[in-house]
């Protein structure tokens, strides 16, 4: 069974259908991309999975557990995390503390232990700091460890955001346009991080991205959305040559792109 199963999701905003009967699955250990023109419903789909929107009908399961039955903050604890298209960091917290918020669901000492900062709280902070430091090493964030996230350069903030999602030790990580606004070098770095997240950190990746080069190179599976429904689903090679995708998504005349 696939790690993430999305079945018959329909989402409407006052009669305007953002998603219509969308269904796809994400295999464990894969990098699956969700692509489509602007307004196709990619981010809406991610929002349904992460819990920001509640779809009108349909079913989403992660590892067999019904996601729609639980509130957004609970979904982290069963192994889901995500990044945002526009940076959504906690500006006043340091890079380290941003990552530690990412681990919030894994820290479980109570309020009284926190108020007194005694035994359990002290030990848990120490232990989880170690895990956060692993991520700082992985994403090369150590020069900024104690700096407020809001003051960092854009590319670094994108990395912190990725780190915060990774800090939760997710089974499935949703990345909403991680390459947006990055230069070529930063894009290559990010691509490498995404591959490592799958290969070394063992997380399955669901990627929303506009950079077709990245999508075609990284993905095992590609899901194409258009006007809120699934147009095609398959390997990059299949999707790239699918006539429906070429005409609807890339434009009918743009055969040069399809042959790339």
């Amino acid at each position, binding site marked *: 069974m696939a790690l993430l199963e999305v079945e018959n999701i329909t989402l409407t905003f006052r009669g305007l259908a953002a998603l219509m009967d969308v269904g796809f699955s994400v295999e464990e250990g894969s990098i699956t991309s969700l692509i489509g023109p602007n307004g196709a419903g990619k981010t809406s789909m991610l929002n349904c999975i*992460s*819990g*920001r929107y509640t779809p009108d009908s349909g079913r989403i399961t992660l590892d067999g557990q019904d996601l729609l039955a639980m*509130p*957004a*903050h*609970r979904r*982290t*604890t069963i192994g889901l*995390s*995500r990044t*945002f298209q526009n940076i*959504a*960091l*906690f*500006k*006043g*917290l340091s890079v380290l*503390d941003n990552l*530690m*918020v*990412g681990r*919030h*669901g894994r*820290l479980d*000492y109570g*309020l009284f*232990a*926190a*108020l*007194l*900062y005694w035994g359990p*709280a*002290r030990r848990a*902070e*120490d232990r989880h*700091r*170690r895990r956060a430091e692993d991520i700082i090493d992985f994403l090369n964030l150590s020069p900024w460890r104690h700096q407020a996230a809001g003051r960092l350069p854009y590319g670094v903030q994108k990395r912190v955001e990725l780190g*915060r999602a990774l800090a*939760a030790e997710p089974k499935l990580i949703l990345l909403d346009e991680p390459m947006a606004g990055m230069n070529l070098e930063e894009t290559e770095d990010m691509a490498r991080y995404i591959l490592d997240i799958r290969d070394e950190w063992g997380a399955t990746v669901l990627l929303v991205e506009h950079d077709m080069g990245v999508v075609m190179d990284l993905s095992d599976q590609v899901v194409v959305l258009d006007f809120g429904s699934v147009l095609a689903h398959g390997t990059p090679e299949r999707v790239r040559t699918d006539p429906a995708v070429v005409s609807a998504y890339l434009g009918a005349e743009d055969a040069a792109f399809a042959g790339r």
Partner: protein
Amino acid sequence: MHGKCGLFFSSYAAEARFFQSGFQRTCLGLFVLLLVAAPLLVGPYLLSVLNIICIAVIGAVSLNLLTGVCGQISLGHGAFMGVGAYGAAICTLRGVPFPLALLAGGAAASLAGMVFGVPSLRLKGIYLAIATLAAQLILEYVFLHAGGITGGSNGLLLDPPTIFGFSCNTDARMFYLLLVCAALSLLVVANLLRTRHGRAFVAIRDFHLSAEIAGVNLFAYKLMAFGVSAFLAGVAGGLWAHYTQFVSPEQFGISQSISCLAMIIIGGLGSVLGSVFGAVFLTLLPEGLNLVAGTLSAWFPDISAQLVALREGVFGLTLVLFLIFEPEGLAHRWKLVRAYWKLYPFAH
């Protein structure tokens, strides 16, 4: 081990300490020693000012936790202090030992805070401010009209607090009690800020949507912020009531809420140290004005009457000047001063 070129930590625990260098700890020790000796060093009037400062520190740090750290504006903080004051007063009048009564007052305030914090799930910023203003007015109305238990506009007369048979019936004894309470309040809030709860509060303030995605239960944590903050405010109220040996609705009006807000704005939002600076500054402001008036009255005999009238104006003007010139508060200025002296006499 306080190297001149910086601090180098060999464990995460060492880095999590509040006071990291030997120099800082020495300074803190000297400061505490000075405070402990204060009743011997200062006159009775100044000691009473110090007592008020201790209570103001608890009030300010509690509001800073809610508004500065968690981003939930409260205009009802004066009323939460009032709930604590009445709660503790009613308990001690019925013979409950003072420490228990103080905690009961805090618990009552905490409950009130959480009830009036419920709208915070839906309301933000100015709308939440209005909702908490309603809390202030409702609670004030209750203080005034539940005459059977609150004594209405006559208020309640109290005895000095007694702890395990030891009566804090002088300003000096009261000072030690208040000092310990203020220090404990600062400690628990500072502790909270370096743990998951404090980080979750800041996360809610900075970006509540991604806080939720990171696993923070927004409703529970907002209520927790209201609860902890109102508890400390209630403790401040209970102490104040027993210090002045009197509770009346006027003490806990909207002006009290506003002055708590002014303290944290002047001191620095979200900073524990800033709460102390703000509380000290705003408590000393009227005293400073009196001093100025006293000095000037040698030349201008009428000035003290006029300055009393100007007091509110000076208060407002100070707040506006701070918002314009030092929006990050005295805590930020303190940071700059420290950074400057760190490398003195070298510029870089």
